[in-house]
């Protein structure tokens, strides 16, 4: 039971709003000690795990390019492209990105999106631009909600698209694990059974995205009524 101390620390730390880096480190060290490792052995295990996980950080290599383009007005340009399209609304832009992201992920092209590469420089400014087009200057609350939706679209489309591709990490993990347990399955079969959930994801989140325009309309109409 004592091995669960790390989970308790993480939950308490996040609820109290402490610095997550500190919370995670303390949780890791406590878990190691609870499992019977010596203090130095725990620090070494944590260091080793941190070093072997460095690949997670490689995505930051895109920042010099994205920053350079932002300096030259990339976000402003993304907004003005949308300003030229009268049919563009927040719902339609996000739904289009959702469909493209989910289909390309299903074809194994998971690196076509991403928060640093696509959402911050292109998708979020386009969605904001569409809303500004229709309603003029946006209150911060609405602007932030649109941005959060842009980030969420990237995540949901990726998660429920990528499993339809047979060579993706999660499919290989499932196959490897079942093989170890003496059950042999075909990656294509695993991929096929990911399709029902993928369709549900498209229907559920697509509907929510379509409702977003309506939310904007009532929200901003009320705002204008107040002033």
């Amino acid at each position, binding site marked *: *039971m004592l*091995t*669960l101390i*790390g*989970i308790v620390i*993480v939950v308490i730390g*996040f609820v109290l709003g402490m610095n*997550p*880096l500190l919370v*995670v*480190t303390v949780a890791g060290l406590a*878990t190691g000690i609870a499992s019977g490792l010596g203090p*130095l052995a*725990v*620090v*070494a*295990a944590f*260091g*080793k*795990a*941190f*070093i072997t*996980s*460095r690949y*997670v*950080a*490689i*995505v930051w290599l*895109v*920042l*010099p*390019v994205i*920053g*350079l*383009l*932002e300096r*030259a*007005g990339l976000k402003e*340009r993304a907004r003005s*492209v949308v300003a030229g399209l009268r049919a563009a609304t927040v719902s339609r832009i996000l739904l289009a990105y959702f469909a493209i992201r989910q289909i390309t992920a299903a074809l194994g092209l998971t690196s*076509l999106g991403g928060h*640093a*590469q*696509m959402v*911050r420089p292109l998708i979020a400014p386009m969605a904001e631009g569409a809303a500004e087009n229709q309603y003029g200057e946006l209150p911060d609350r609405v602007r932030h*909600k649109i941005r*959060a939706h842009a*980030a969420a679209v990237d*995540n949901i489309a990726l*998660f*429920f698209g990528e499993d339809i591709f047979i060579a993706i990490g999660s499919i290989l*993990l499932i196959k490897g*694990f079942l093989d170890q347990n003496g*059950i042999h399955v075909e990656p294509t079969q*695993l*991929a096929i*059974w990911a399709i029902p*959930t993928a369709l*549900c994801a498209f229907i*559920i989140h697509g509907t929510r995205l379509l409702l977003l325009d309506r939310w904007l309309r009532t929200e901003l109409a009320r705002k204008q009524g107040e002033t």
Partner: protein
Amino acid sequence: MITLEHIYWLTGLMMAGVALVNSRDFTNPRRFNNTAFWGIYAITFLIGSHLPDLASGFLVIGMVLVASIRGLGQGKTESTSRAEREASARRWGAKLFIPALTIPFVTVLGTFFFKKITLDGSPLVDVKQATVISLAIATLIALAVGMAMLRPPLSAPIREARRLLDAVGWAAVLPQMLAALGALFAIAGVGNVVSGLAQRWIPLDNPFVVVLTYTMGMAVFTMIMGNAFAAFPVMTAGIGLPLIVQRFGGDPTIMAAIGMLSGFCGTLMTPMAANFNIVPTALLELPDENAVIKVQVPTALLLLAANILLMNFLVFRR
């Protein structure tokens, strides 16, 4: 051959550059904290593969202390004003998208073709890491295109990288830290304890209750671990295989496929999946660090319900 190690050197150089720019930014009252934080991070990339584990561990603890005791700051200077950017956007027009779209385009192309290129009989890139290496090469090509096109000062890319990385702040390191925590959880056997608890306390003699426990367990355990990949072996070995497959004769393929996707519903709802849920709030400059999670929760819950029903109707259909 280009391996992951070379990409780490590149990342380390970028982090070192970010530290250097920070050390000379007098508009940031905590500039030495930022310098120390990104500087130590740079070391873990440049020589991390050769450091003893204990030294790496103390470096990580050093970063955490710098970030949490006095915290990181942010410089105040912007390289260009909004009016300058709008003028530049008009001047360059749609051409600005070329370098931005070069990144995904070359990455995808690279994952297919870099594997096939060989030099003196050995492959040009480490085949196992083709995607990550392709991404790194794509950013270099995009940077070259951008520099040739825009002709900014040579220091512009690293200054801009500094601006964006400081906007993200310590959250940039959180995904990696959580991956390390997951490894420690695995060493300590946290998963076995959790599935043992589930087996002891939940009545598992009805197929629907078993499906419910497995799918919800995947979601909840993914929320705790921040990663469905960590939850899957634990829940499947503890509940899925012995009960759904062996006792009630369910189809292991369908169980595994939908089980993993139930875990992904959990990923949408947890701050522990920092790279998906916390990092974007920093990148998009949202004041509420749970803003993305709040938007995702309704979809995640509806989809989890859909998964429970799908598994219940599909897994026992034989």
